[in-house]
């Protein structure tokens, strides 16, 4: 158990040889995930034509940028030992509000900060309820989920197209590396979020407090850490990143719809956990979450390339791949202990 409960090892070199070995051991879950991911990609390349195209790999990023952002927020929450079920609904609410306002002729420069603010406020509210009233995160964020979905449904039950020029350009802007090889702006935004998040977690007082709370909230309190403030902050961050994810999703879909991002909370949680973060908190890395998102994305890519799976076989095969991946990951990390 101990090898996974480690803080991120900063880039500074460690001197003594036995220390180096120990430091590496903490990275084993992440390394194992990485290796298995490579293996899965290799299997895809071996089995399907065109799978080796660079764009197939880049598409995994393009198609999952919003999930990456949302999962990054979820990582903060789970590291404190909490959970945020509202993320999918906040994503949907963001798309609906953005689409509605843009259609009403509001300028993008106003809509963008506004929707981010709405998500942040929702997150702040949930965090405050969780902290001040000692309500279980599961319930508080479930209520948040109903609330956000309910609001978006109330605003408009139809799907609303977005035609705003800024949105369209963000949606269709491609950063090209060669003919037919590109990523979207969303990918860049997502990567910036991940890097910033990883920095905050590893190198700031706030980030370390997040880990401390996940390790033992009572102790953290007695150690004089700002537990309440930090706990509220992680839900606020998650709310903000959900809204940002919602913006990215609205770039991706160019529409707002109350049923967007159904079940995204589970995808995000799954990505975080597959990436090696322990649900009870206190251990794991944001980089692991990135890998988790890639695993989910790659599974989906393989399914589409297979192209012969009926609806139910799609589900079964997703389950089988997930199972194989997780069990292998588990065995690899266990063996090396």
């Amino acid at each position, binding site marked *: 158990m101990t090898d996974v409960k480690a803080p991120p090892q900063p880039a500074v070199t460690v001197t003594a040889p036995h220390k180096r070995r120990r430091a590496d051991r903490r990275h084993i879950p992440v390394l194992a995930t990485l290796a298995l991911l490579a293996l899965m990609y290799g299997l895809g390349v071996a089995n399907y034509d065109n799978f080796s195209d660079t764009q197939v790999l880049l598409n995994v990023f393009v198609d999952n940028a919003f999930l990456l952002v949302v999962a990054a927020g979820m990582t903060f929450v789970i590291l404190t030992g909490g959970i945020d079920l509202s993320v999918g609904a906040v994503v949907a609410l963001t798309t609906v509000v953005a689409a509605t306002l843009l259609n009403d002729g509001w300028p993008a420069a106003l809509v963008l900060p506004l929707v981010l603010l709405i998500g942040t406020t929702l997150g702040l509210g949930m965090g405050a309820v969780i902290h001040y*009233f000692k309500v279980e995160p*599961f319930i508080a964020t479930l209520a948040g989920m109903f609330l956000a979905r309910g609001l978006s449904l109330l605003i408009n039950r139809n799907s609303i197209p977005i035609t705003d020029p800024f949105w369209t350009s963000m949606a269709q802007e491609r950063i090209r590396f060669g003919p037919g090889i590109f990523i979207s702006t969303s990918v860049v935004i997502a990567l910036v979020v991940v890097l910033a998040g990883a920095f905050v977690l590893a190198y700031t007082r706030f980030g370390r407090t997040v880990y401390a709370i996940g390790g033992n909230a009572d102790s953290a309190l007695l150690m004089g850490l700002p537990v309440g403030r930090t706990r509220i902050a992680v839900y606020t961050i998650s709310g903000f990143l959900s809204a940002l994810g919602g913006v990215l999703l609205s770039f991706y879909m160019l529409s707002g719809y109350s049923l967007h991002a159904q079940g995204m909370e589970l995808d995000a949680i799954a990505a975080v*956990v597959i990436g090696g973060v322990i649900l009870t908190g206190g251990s794991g890395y944001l980089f692991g979450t990135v890998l988790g998102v890639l695993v989910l994305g790659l599974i989906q890519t393989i399914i589409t390339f297979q192209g012969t799976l009926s609806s139910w076989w799609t589900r079964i095969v997703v389950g089988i791949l997930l199972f194989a991946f997780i069990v292998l990951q588990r065995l690899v990390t266990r063996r090396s202990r």
Partner: protein
Amino acid sequence: MTAIVKHRLFWPAVVLVLLLVSNVFFAPRFFTITLQDGHLYGSLIDVLRSATPLALVALGMTMVIATGGIDLSVGSVMAISGAVACLFIGDLSNQGSVGGVLLAVGLALVLALVAGLWNGVLVSVIGIQPIIATLILMVAGRGIAQLLTGGQIINVSSPPFRVIGAGYALAIPVSVIIVAVVVAAAVLLIRRSALGVLVEAVGASPTASRLAGIRARGLTIGAYVFAAVCAGIAGLIFSSNVASADSNAAGNLIELDAILAVVIGGTALTGGRFSIAGSVLGAVLISALDITTYTIGVPAETTLLFKAVVVVILCLSQSAAFRAAVFRRRRTPAVTPAAEVPA
């Protein structure tokens, strides 16, 4: 008196009563129960009847949560169990045969048991985090149910099978009787054995319980198996109720409602102390909430919002900190006029 107010189920019970009473303004005969065609008929009966699958699933979920786990696959297990039973009955030469139906029910429950074993082994033997371990079956299980039914709704016209979910015995819905029996059996088993304290110990502190010699593995697997079998029975009630198996709709999102019911009932998601009565109350509360939205005619667009408001009220009412904040303001001047700390 204060003992009642202090009881942790007091506030959910209050919310339940308020919800039910609020119906009367929209449907004056809400509390009327009549005897119709030899069975009880009325909105309260509907509330109980529609709570049955959820109550069962919540019961199983309670045990899993008590061990410190969570089971997302219950909905899929419901779908599988319903599908298997309906397929089996559909193939019977005589759908009315009680033996055939019993066989179908047995088969469905055995499959549910296997599903529970699968979850339990993944969690406690292989050591996968419960949420992911059960996510696998949640995703794949519904696929399996759809595979079995070919994505179609399987209809049966088997009177004995109908009894489970839509029948009445002694004027009481059979499904309610089934749930009452299962709950009573569970409570009895836990009271009469040492299961309760052992499970709570495992959930509250796995390390300490290991060092106390508790075999957590068996208990954990047992909890998942129990949850799956409960879900299996729930699936049978669900499909029997409409005499068909709908692999797509059966138990869809029920895991969320079940977890909600468990938490409303006072069992913490972190494991340890659990309350079966609380979970059942939670399930009835959620079912009453659904029926209330229909009765008072909340528009479909605002149903979710309405639900959110009730859940918020509920969790605030249960929060001691919130009550303290509200009551202190009222009480402070009366008890200690000056010296009290400004909060």
